[in-house]
């Protein structure tokens, strides 16, 4: 510090704000934002005015109007007499979410299986998996949906000549009919016992992990866990059954004039959509999984084998955890694709959001701008939520530098 810089020289040189790069940058940002905002405002205002001039009803009031049409597959109560367009929207939304969730779970299971099979040392298994992937991901999804719906499911026998499995399960071109479980009033004890068993099993597993880390001793996690998860509900059942009425009965489908009545029905539109989405997306997931596994250096599995690990544990404990880092980001895209592709339901009459809301509701109300805007917002929200959840998971499996 022999030659200190004078204080006035260290201070930033006095520049006119007009030439200050930071102020300029901020000003440009604000200007751009204003321009975009103004354009959006003008466009929305213009659309509203034009709709008014064309005497087309606008606004979101229609959501409270009585719908007046029926939907055959609903997760929430819906009746033409008193349900509103808003409820119809929820019917479509829940149907879309159901297909997306079931499709994602099944596609993940199938995709991982095929992806691993494609790397199998067994030549036939590897080739079959290869053929599966190359065929299914190269045929347009719409064609596959139509194939399942028109060629496969529609060629099942008519309702009067259903295939019967035993006396209570029926399959025909109107779908799969299975008995509907009817819970007695005090049957809540069974799911409660199941939940309790599950919680206890998880707690035991956590304890076993700590015990193994501390002493190296392994506790019998699987047998205790299964005992808790299956045993507690069975015990509850037994207590209920001994105390009186059967806690669980089944409503069996019976043949009516046209259709089977009673029981639970899995509609062909739903089955075709889930099958199509699952089988198609699984082909892509299989490739994602294969690339993820192949991205793990061979040295890793060789080292595991050198330590004496069998192939199963090698895959499970060494390869997959490292592969997940590569797999998760593209897997997220596949989940998003599946969700968005579920809108192809419109081609086979499954009442998803697009079919019910952008189809029937749009047409009965004529409010295209509002309905399309809501639908777009919904898909955007679902996709962003899925991406958010997967990003959280990705942060957990990502490589942690130590």
């Amino acid at each position: 510090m022999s030659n200190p810089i004078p204080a006035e020289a260290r201070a930033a040189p006095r520049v006119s704000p007009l030439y200050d790069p930071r102020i300029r940058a901020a000003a440009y940002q604000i200007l751009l934002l204003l321009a975009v905002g103004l354009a959006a405002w003008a466009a929305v205002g213009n659309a509203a005015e034009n709709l008014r001039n064309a005497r087309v009803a606008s606004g979101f009031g229609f959501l409270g109007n009585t719908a007046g049409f029926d939907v055959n597959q609903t997760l929430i109560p819906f009746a033409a007499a008193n349900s509103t367009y808003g409820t119809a929207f929820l019917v479509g939304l829940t149907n879309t979410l159901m297909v997306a969730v079931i499709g994602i779970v099944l596609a993940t299971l199938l995709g991982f299986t095929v992806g691993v099979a494609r790397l199998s040392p067994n030549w036939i298994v590897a080739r079959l998996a290869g053929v599966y992937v190359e065929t299914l991901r190269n045929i347009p999804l719409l064609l596959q949906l139509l194939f399942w719906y028109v060629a496969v499911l529609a060629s099942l026998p008519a309702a009067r000549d259903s295939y019967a499995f035993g006396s209570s399960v029926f399959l025909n071109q109107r779908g799969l009919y299975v008995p509907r479980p009817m819970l007695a009033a005090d049957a809540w004890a069974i799911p409660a016992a199941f939940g309790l068993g599950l919680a206890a099993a998880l707690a035991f597993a956590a304890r076993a992990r700590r015990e193994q880390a501390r002493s190296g001793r392994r506790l019998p996690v699987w047998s205790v866990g299964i005992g808790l998860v299956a045993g507690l509900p069975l015990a509850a059942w037994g207590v209920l059954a001994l105390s009186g009425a059967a806690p669980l009965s089944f409503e069996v489908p019976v043949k009516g004039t046209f259709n089977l009545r009673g029981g639970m029905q899995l509609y062909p539109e739903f089955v075709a959509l889930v099958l199509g989405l699952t089988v198609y997306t699984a082909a892509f997931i299989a490739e994602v999984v294969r690339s993820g596994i192949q991205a793990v250096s061979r040295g890793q599995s060789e080292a595991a084998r050198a330590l004496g690990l069998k192939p199963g544990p090698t895959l499970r404990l060494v390869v997959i955890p490292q592969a997940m880092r590569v797999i998760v980001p593209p897997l997220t895209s596949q989940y998003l694709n599946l969700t968005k592709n579920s809108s192809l339901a419109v081609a086979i009459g499954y009442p998803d959001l697009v079919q019910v809301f952008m189809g029937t509701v749009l047409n009965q109300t004529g409010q295209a701008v509002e309905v399309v805007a809501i639908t777009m917002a919904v898909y955007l929200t679902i996709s962003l939520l899925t991406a958010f959840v997967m990003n959280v998971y990705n942060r957990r499996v990502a490589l942690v530098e130590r």
Partner: protein
Amino acid sequence: MRKTVAALALGLGASLLAGAAQAQATLTSIKQKGYIACGSNPGLAGFGVPDAQGRWAGLDVDFCRALSAAIFNDAGKVRFIPLSAKDRFTALQSGEVDILSRNTTWSMSRDTTLGLDFPAINFYDGQGFMVKKKLGVTSAKQLEGASVCTQQGTTTELNLADYFRANKLKYEVVAFASADETFKAYDSGRCDAFTTDASGLYAERLRASAPDDNIVLPEIISKEPLGPAVRQGDAQWSDVVRWTHYAMLNAEEAGITQGNADQMLKTSDNPDVKRILGTEGKYGADLGLTGDWAYRIIKLVGNYGEVFEKNVGQGSPLKIQRGLNALWSKGGLQYGPPIR
């Protein structure tokens, strides 16, 4: 930023959509571009269907040809734009078509909330059911528990719900986006019954894998006044459409046909006939057309009765009776106000 861009794109898209609806007067723009953009049914025998050569045929299609004849003295200056039930109103609102002539039911909510006008009714219809003969069903009241295929976005879908509710019958609706998918699903056995306007039932039955295995039930469960629709707020174009239909009715009533129009033009002393054919008065000019507008329609397309019989009546495979669509003077509802 992503949200702003989405909002902007949405707003822009919406304003483009609505911007087109604010074009100049429809008749002027049709004359300028040299053709009528006619929203037609993608394939309903008797009303709007392209044949093997791609030539459109049908009652609704011929209505657009009649407009073309009146405006251009040429029945061929029409571009047919096939529209599904689901897409039809948006296409008309956005200006993609000048007129929707595809068996569309006139209802109050469509008239008041969609920004549309229904200038005329060119076919009085009602909704019915078709079932497979082997079910042994003879009345719609026996359809308790049945699956019914219908097309979404139609008045049919609403009437169906009303009918089963009013009669306290349970049913399962299976709705499809296009008429084609709907009928195929019924034909393949997905549904027990197929429902649409009665005229449509007869037309679709022709396409069944075995037409004679299907019967149409006797119940008519609704009123379906079908007619052309135009955008609201263009009174001149509305008038042209309305009077084109009435000219065809009046021609039938006065006995003017495609075959005798020329002769009637020269020889008739009947003042009604002379006003229709434009040799007396200047009614066409007041409409924004030429004096011989109605003569052109009759000469190039035909009167209402001729067009009806050719497309859906005895001259067609549908063999639909005139019924409600007979002239008022013959016990029907078709009534053309006087041209004078």
